[in-house]
């Protein structure tokens, strides 16, 4: 089913802005294979509004998806936002009347999400030293919210993640000695269980809106939210694939471990040992390596035809180059 998003946004503008509200902007921004993001704006009875539409363009299968539904995503943003997290304001959760399928609308947040800009653009030079600490604070803002019981979020720990990604890796048929060694090593170093918290699940440079003056403006892209070890969210933003050319700055390519951990603790979170973060960081590289393999397979098996996919398959070696150093250093 093809949806005329532009036409649907005209109708939505009238619904949100009152009769006579005029759509003044509608453009598709980036999009993944299954998700579309649109920037739109209208002039309505209550004044001008600048909004973002997030909609799923292929049907959602809750059985096989790793991600949560967009409705769950929107409700999580509302729940954590109400509890003080730095997240966008949800303006509207779409229903059948909107004709947009699974979708929601949030208030547009200004700033920059491109990872390389955050790590290297001089516009961020002044605020950059504060960002790792702010990321720790922002994470506590998310983790402190109890996981809403009616959402049935997946609960994971180190062993569950290793099992899952090893199963996926075996199914690919690829033979990569460094990935084998990483699985073996991480299994011997699974940290002791902790009380699980709500996790963002994809907390990395690239999914955070940064303001050049104020720093962390909003945490975006909640589709991988789940419940687990708070150090998982910290390890993912420290995974070198998301440091955009600045491996010397372990947190997102902009900051240091100590600031991330201290920001989290000072905001009210529990003290977390660095080795625990490093475990999840290493598992992050391994997980990204396995994901790159599966993206190549989606092309080989004819599911996705874009040239992007086989080339992502060649990114496995970046995770191997990182993993081998982490294995040499030890946790």
């Amino acid at each position, binding site marked *: 089913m093809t949806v005329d998003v532009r036409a649907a946004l005209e109708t939505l503008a009238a619904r949100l802005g009152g009769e006579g509200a005029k759509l003044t902007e509608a453009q598709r921004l980036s999009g993944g294979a299954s998700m579309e993001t649109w920037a739109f704006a209208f002039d309505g009875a209550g004044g001008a509004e600048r909004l973002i539409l997030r909609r799923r363009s292929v049907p959602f299968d809750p059985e096989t998806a790793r991600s949560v539904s967009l409705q769950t995503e929107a409700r999580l943003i509302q729940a954590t936002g109400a509890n003080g997290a730095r997240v966008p304001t949800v303006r509207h959760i779409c229903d059948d009347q909107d004709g947009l399928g699974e979708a929601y609308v949030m208030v547009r947040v200004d700033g920059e999400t491109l990872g390389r800009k955050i790590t290297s653009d001089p516009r961020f030079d002044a605020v950059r030293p504060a960002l790792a600490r702010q990321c720790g604070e922002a994470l506590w803002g998310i983790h402190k919210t109890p996981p809403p019981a009616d959402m049935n979020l997946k609960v994971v720990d180190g062993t569950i993640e290793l099992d899952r990604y090893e199963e996926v890796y075996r199914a690919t048929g690829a*033979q*990569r*000695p*460094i990935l*084998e*060694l990483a*699985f*073996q*090593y991480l299994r011997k170093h699974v940290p002791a269980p902790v009380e699980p918290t709500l996790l963002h699940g994809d907390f990395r440079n690239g999914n955070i809106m940064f303001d050049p003056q104020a720093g962390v403006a909003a945490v975006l892209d909640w589709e991988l939210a789940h419940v687990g070890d708070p150090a998982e969210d910290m390890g993912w933003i420290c995974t*070198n694939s998301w440091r955009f*050319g*600045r*491996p*010397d*700055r372990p947190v997102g390519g902009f900051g240091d471990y100590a600031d991330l951990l201290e920001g989290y603790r000072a905001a009210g979170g529990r003290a977390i040992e660095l080795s625990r973060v490093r475990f999840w960081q290493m598992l992050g*590289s391994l997980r990204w390596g396995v994901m790159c393999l599966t993206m190549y397979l989606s092309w080989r098996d004819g599911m996705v035809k*874009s*040239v*992007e996919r*086989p*080339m992502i398959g*060649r*990114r496995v*070696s*970046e995770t*191997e*180059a*990182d*993993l*081998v*150093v*982490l*294995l*040499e*250093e*030890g946790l």
Partner: protein
Amino acid sequence: MITHPRTEELAESVRLWIDEIRPTLDPRNAFLARVAANAMATIYRELTQGPAAEARAVEGMREVLGSDGDFAALNAELCERIRSGELGVETPGLLPMLAAMARDQIAIDQPSYRPEGTPPPAA
């Protein structure tokens, strides 16, 4: 193999052509064209650097495993012996050999990538 042109020169000529037409494309295709040009560059590097890298890998694996065979056979044996737990981070020579293999592979796949442990760029 014939030399006028060599295979890698064909790959290079296609990459240069893609780069030439990129500015004329819409944003989505311009992005995909950049990926395609990168793919051609990877093919070029694999053709020119791959054989030596594979020879080094074979030699390294022979040494650590104490076995013989071609790349595929040695690689499969290496994976199996790590999976079984017989080889691990404490195995003499294993990590340096894997590190060398990883360096050679990233030099083909993504030479601009800065792996974990790389010092900051010169100011």
